[in-house]
């Protein structure tokens, strides 16, 4: 069986309307993939930066996967949340990126979006806070059913990922 190591960091986020952000992340794979070691999901710390606009999480990722097929190459998905001074959390963005298929170091910038909601929801969000959220989180990384959403652009999530492949070339796979 071929093996894949993903070693790296969720570095941080930029271009969000406010700092004091944290991120929930997870790895989604197809059915042929198995996790041998490492965390498949997690939540970062809340960063409240002093002198710059970007939040930094430096959240380590180290995961060892094995696979019998190429379908469902791993994807990393994120939910970025904003935590205000009273400890209330508000959704700021959804996003996903594919784990690169070529081995080596990769700097990845992942754009994010959030559901914008109806006009009424936007008015109530302006005065009361809170934001519409997805009931079904599969929508973050799947293309089906997206057409029913209306969304708005949010900031970017930055990742530094190292990819190590093992025995892919033994099965004739060129990455």
């Amino acid at each position, binding site marked *: 069986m071929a093996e894949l190591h993903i070693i790296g960091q969720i570095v941080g986020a930029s271009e969000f309307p406010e700092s004091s952000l944290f991120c929930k992340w997870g790895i989604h794979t197809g059915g042929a993939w198995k996790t041998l070691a490492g965390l498949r999901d997690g939540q970062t710390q809340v960063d409240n930066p002093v002198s710059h606009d970007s939040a930094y999480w430096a959240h380590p990722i180290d995961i060892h996967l094995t696979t019998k097929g190429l379908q469902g190459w791993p994807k990393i998905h994120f939910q970025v949340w904003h935590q205000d001074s009273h400890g209330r959390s508000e959704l700021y963005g959804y996003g996903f990126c594919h784990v690169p298929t070529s081995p*080596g170091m990769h700097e990845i910038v992942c754009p994010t979006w959030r559901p914008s909601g109806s006009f009424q929801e936007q008015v109530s969000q302006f005065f009361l806070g809170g934001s519409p959220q997805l009931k079904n989180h599969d929508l973050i990384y799947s293309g089906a059913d997206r057409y029913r959403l209306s969304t708005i652009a949010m900031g970017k999530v930055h990742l530094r990922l190292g990819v190590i492949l*093992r025995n892919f070339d033994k099965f004739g796979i060129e990455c």
Partner: protein
Amino acid sequence: MASSSVFLLMVGGQIETGEFPEFDDIYCKYCFTYGQDWLITSGLEEGLTQVTKKSKDERQIFTWNFPLDITFKSTNPFGWPQCIVQAYGLDAFGTEVVRGYGVCHVPITPGRHKIQIPMFVPESSSQLQKFTAWILGRRPEFIDPRVVASGEGREVTRVRSQGFVTISFNVVMKDMKKLGYDVIPFRSDFIHGPRECRNERHINRNMMKNRSFMMF
């Protein structure tokens, strides 16, 4: 540990510079953390830099130029080494205060890499603690700095990022390809030559960049 299933990871490098706009004197402590399958074969796992002052020009940087030199061996890339940097400084009363924790993985590809590490300090978890910290002049610290290199239990921490440290790494590996691991992309232009040739060329190119590696 059978010698045929072991690969080596040799890391050279330096803690180059830092940026902490709010502070004047900083020194760094570094340590490496790694998984169970890893061992250090040579080099120092921990170290302490000199104390340096912020430069008096418009760059406002701290320069340590502190050497890192360590070799690991392992059977499994899982638990790949991470470099933890802690920055310390003196406050107005002369007590030592932590100015930042930072972490990055040792790069997984051979060659030269320059990484800017964000540095953050934990925040007090309640207003009362914030107040007592202010009265006593004792800021919150991590008891074990290795928590910054682990992905678990981070959702309970609130941090303030307040600077950067720049580290350069020179990475050389041995026997990764022999064990079936690919760390650099498949190159079709080398496909007709022997597979080892491809790796050698890559590493040689990096050796030429850094003359200190010529003796390796």
